[in-house]
């Protein structure tokens, strides 16, 4: 039976909700905190921030990551920047405006109260990061510098060259290091969480595989926080790191946590196009490039002249033409789809025809090469190393690529999933970005969740009590560990003929072609069948070398791909059920005469959250209605 979900949004005016809620959250006295153990899975901005802050407060924290050190969590790769409504540029920014931009950017599919809280907390993030020694870009006068990102008309993005994520993450890592030294945080690098342990309906622990020895290990706690990032590698090729996975949230889903809006994925407009089928990932070219780069294609389909030989009058600056108000800085979903439209019409460039130009000639003329190099030098170098072409002279070639997943585990206002005691933060949850995330807002959400929200709401949960102590000797731990062990042994036992990568690649093709930038009923139905067949084939024909009790990268990947093969199907089902177009979810059946996404607010102004009912059984779709009391719901326009 389908349920209506309660997000437990505090009452009262929007602007006061979080303050009031913080006041109403019960507290744990300092001396009692060390008696509580909190498991935090993930050391990115969300997980690392939460672990360090909980440690600072005196809780006993166990923190896990798959990398060899917490400083390499995937947040490290974020390039462009982080938003905050500081209004340092005096261009009319405010908490309200950031809130409005984010809700509109998400195509009216996010939860008002969460987004408002995010906007409010944004300012404290910048203060905190500066205090920890994050070297943000500055003006000559010594104040902080800003740049613009897509979908907004103010300059509110703080940055550290093209390495903002790295610098923010190193801030988190330093805070974590301090807590490790203080003995409050215990760090478990190269430990992969493979399942969640639920005791008496509450999240009480995890089972991990030690990625060095292959040993299965159990950990018990009073609360569990998952901050394990996004699942874009379900497409195989994406801008994400090769170890990013859905495993932790997928396993939690199979233990009863609801999965919200799995089909909401962000295809980023500006990545280096795919070059061949040997590729292991796609490289992002930051959205900040659209501050100064102009996107264009030749006006005539099939025009194979070199870009320099195509005169101005024969070029189509398609974003500027279609969206004069925002030009090259329209939101990502819009820019990505517009590029696809041009390529599908035969105007794409490069060998494959699946690329458009991003041209800096005008910017170099206007600002000089040095200024352009100062702003984007590292990105230009990266591009040149990969493509062997110089973007100072020839326009970059770019094409959309899977990048970010707005979907994730369903959480209420307290970031608590439908399993009590299981909290979900950062990209792993679904909460703040609706159907499309604006640039520079993921870092903001990760930091807000990690530094500010999780510590408060977890304390509230612990203070309310009602859960006794559980140790890893509890039978539930043994049962889960056995299941995990059997799953991994089964993967090794198949001894088939095709590699893990073969299957991952095939899944990626199905996802990209049928559950990617444009989706329709026929394609989605085919995708569901094909993914089921692929999954079936996987468990009969995959070849995983080596042993369970060893360092075994292929086995790690085998487990992750097994989960992607299940998640992919749910994404297609979700996309099929959502008979409308919104943000990054574009159903070919639902568009305006100009080709823009057409929402159906009457029937779909809700979050869809799926409940697992057992393998081989249809999951149930629950809904959380979205109510907009403080913002007028409109048709999104960037014209």
């Amino acid at each position, binding site marked *: 039976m389908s349920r209506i979900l309660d997000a437990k949004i505090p009452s009262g005016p929007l602007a006061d909700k979080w303050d009031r809620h913080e006041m109403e959250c019960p507290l744990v006295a300092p001396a009692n905190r060390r008696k509580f153990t909190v498991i935090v899975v993930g050391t990115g901005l969300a997980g690392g921030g939460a672990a360090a*802050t909980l440690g*600072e407060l005196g809780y006993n924290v166990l923190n896990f990551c798959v*990398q*060899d*050190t917490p*400083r*390499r969590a*995937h947040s*490290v*790769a974020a390039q462009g920047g982080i938003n905050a409504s*500081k209004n340092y540029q005096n261009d009319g920014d405010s908490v309200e405006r950031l809130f409005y931009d984010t809700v509109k950017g998400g195509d009216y599919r996010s939860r008002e109260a969460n987004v408002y809280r995010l906007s409010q907390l944004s300012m*404290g993030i910048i*203060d905190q990061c*500066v*205090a*920890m*020694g994050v*070297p*943000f*870009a*500055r003006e*000559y*006068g*010594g*104040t*902080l510098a800003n740049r613009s990102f897509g979908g907004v008309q103010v300059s509110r993005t703080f940055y*550290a*060259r093209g*390495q903002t994520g*790295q610098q923010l993450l190193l801030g988190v*890592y*330093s805070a974590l*290091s*301090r807590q490790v*030294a203080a003995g409050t945080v215990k*760090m478990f690098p190269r430990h992969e969480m493979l399942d969640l342990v639920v005791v008496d309906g509450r999240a009480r622990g995890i089972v991990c595989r030690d990625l060095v*020895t292959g040993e299965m290990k159990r950990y018990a706690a009073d609360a569990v926080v998952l901050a394990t990032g996004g699942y874009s590698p379900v497409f195989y090729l994406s801008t994400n*790191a*090769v*170890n990013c996975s859905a495993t932790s949230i997928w396993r939690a889903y199979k233990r009863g946590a609801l999965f919200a809006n799995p089909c909401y994925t962000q295809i980023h407009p500006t990545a280096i196009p795919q*070059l*061949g089928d*040997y*590729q*292991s*990932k796609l490289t992002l070219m930051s959205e900040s490039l659209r501050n100064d780069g102009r996107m264009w294609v030749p006006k005539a389909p099939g025009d194979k002249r070199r870009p320099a030989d195509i005169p101005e009058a024969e070029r189509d600056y398609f974003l500027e033409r279609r969206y004069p108000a925002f030009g090259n800085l329209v939101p990502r979903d819009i820019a990505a789809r517009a590029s696809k439209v041009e390529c599908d019409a035969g105007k794409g460039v490069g060998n494959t025809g699946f690329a458009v130009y991003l041209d800096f000639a005008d910017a170099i003329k206007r600002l000089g090469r040095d200024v352009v190099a100062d702003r984007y030098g590292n990105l230009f*170098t*990266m591009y040149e*190393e990969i493509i*062997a072409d110089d973007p100072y002279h020839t326009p970059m070639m770019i094409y959309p690529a899977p990048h970010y997943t707005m979907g994730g585990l369903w959480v209420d206002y307290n970031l608590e999933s439908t399993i009590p005691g299981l909290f979900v933060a950062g990209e792993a949850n679904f909460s703040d970005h609706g159907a499309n995330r604006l640039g520079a807002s993921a870092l903001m959400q990760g930091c807000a969740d990690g530094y*500010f929200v999780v510590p408060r709401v977890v304390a509230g949960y612990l203070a309310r009590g009602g859960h006794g102590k559980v140790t890893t000797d509890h039978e539930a731990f043994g049962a889960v560990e056995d299941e995990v062990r059997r799953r991994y042994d089964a993967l090794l036992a198949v001894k088939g003929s095709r*590699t893990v*990568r073969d299957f991952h690649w095939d899944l990626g093709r199905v996802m990209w072609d049928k559950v990617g930038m444009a989706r329709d009923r026929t394609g989605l139905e085919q995708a569901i069948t094909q993914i089921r067949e692929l999954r079936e084939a996987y468990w009969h024909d995959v*070849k995983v*070398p*080596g042993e369970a009790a060893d*360092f*075994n*990268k*292929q086995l790690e990947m085998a487990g992750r791909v097994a989960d992607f093969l299940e998640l992919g199907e749910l994404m297609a089902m979700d996309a099929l059920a959502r008979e409308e177009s919104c943000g990054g979810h574009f159903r070919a059946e639902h568009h305006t005469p100009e080709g823009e996404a057409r929402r159906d607010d009457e029937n779909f102004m809700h979050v869809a959250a799926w409940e697992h009912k057992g393998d081989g059984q249809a999951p149930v779709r629950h809904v959380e209605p979205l109510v907009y009391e403080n913002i007028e719901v409109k048709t999104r326009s960037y014209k």
Partner: protein
Amino acid sequence: MSEMTIHLKIWRQARGETKDSQKSQGRFVDYTVEKVLPEMSFLETLDLLNEKLTRQGQQPVEFDSDCREGICGTCGLVIKGTAHGPNPKTTTCEVRMRHFRDGETITVEPFRAGPFPILKDLVVDRTAFDRIQQQGGFVTANVGSAPDSNAVPIPKLDADKAMDAASCIGCGACVAACPNASASLFVGAKISQLSYLPQGGPERGRRALLMIGQMDREGFGDCSNHGECEAVCPKEISIENIARMRREFFKGALGGHDRKAATGD
């Protein structure tokens, strides 16, 4: 697009063989990879090899990587005798095959250094870096206690210098390249970053003493100005940071900070 054949001489070592016996127990094994394209990355070539080995029922070569775009610091191989390969300013994952010749033989080894025990094949344990960081690579600033971020202006030049030093990705190439296996470039970079910023000020002396003390305890060697570290560093961390680290250390010592803690006596 011309396909190449590449010969690889790869260090193989089973798990559990101790760090002191790296060389005696591991060994080089020869492999050949066909159909390598010039635009492929070096790690994609290893992927291709591993696909082949897996299909043939052999053990794939273990190596570390994650972002594959030069920012996370996970990858790290000694390629043709140089940490991160022959090209300057790049990480292992950024190395492209167009820099090699058809038919070339390439040796591939792990980052070798006493404090980086080999875990398996090309994978090493760099947690010693984490333990150094834990000694003082931070500013003590609890969440909730920060003033407005524009309250303390920082000259652009200082912010830029801090950022230069902060670009270190913690890959460990500097250690692998140093004849003394010194971690001075890595440690110097962190100490410098925080010394350029007013926020890092109050803990400067203590930080330098404690981090350097831990570096010694981990078994990293002394710096004798060979400069190999700077040459291989993918992020162009300048050796000036080592000089600055030394100044911070002396200032710390003169400032009467706890030398015992620093030296571990």
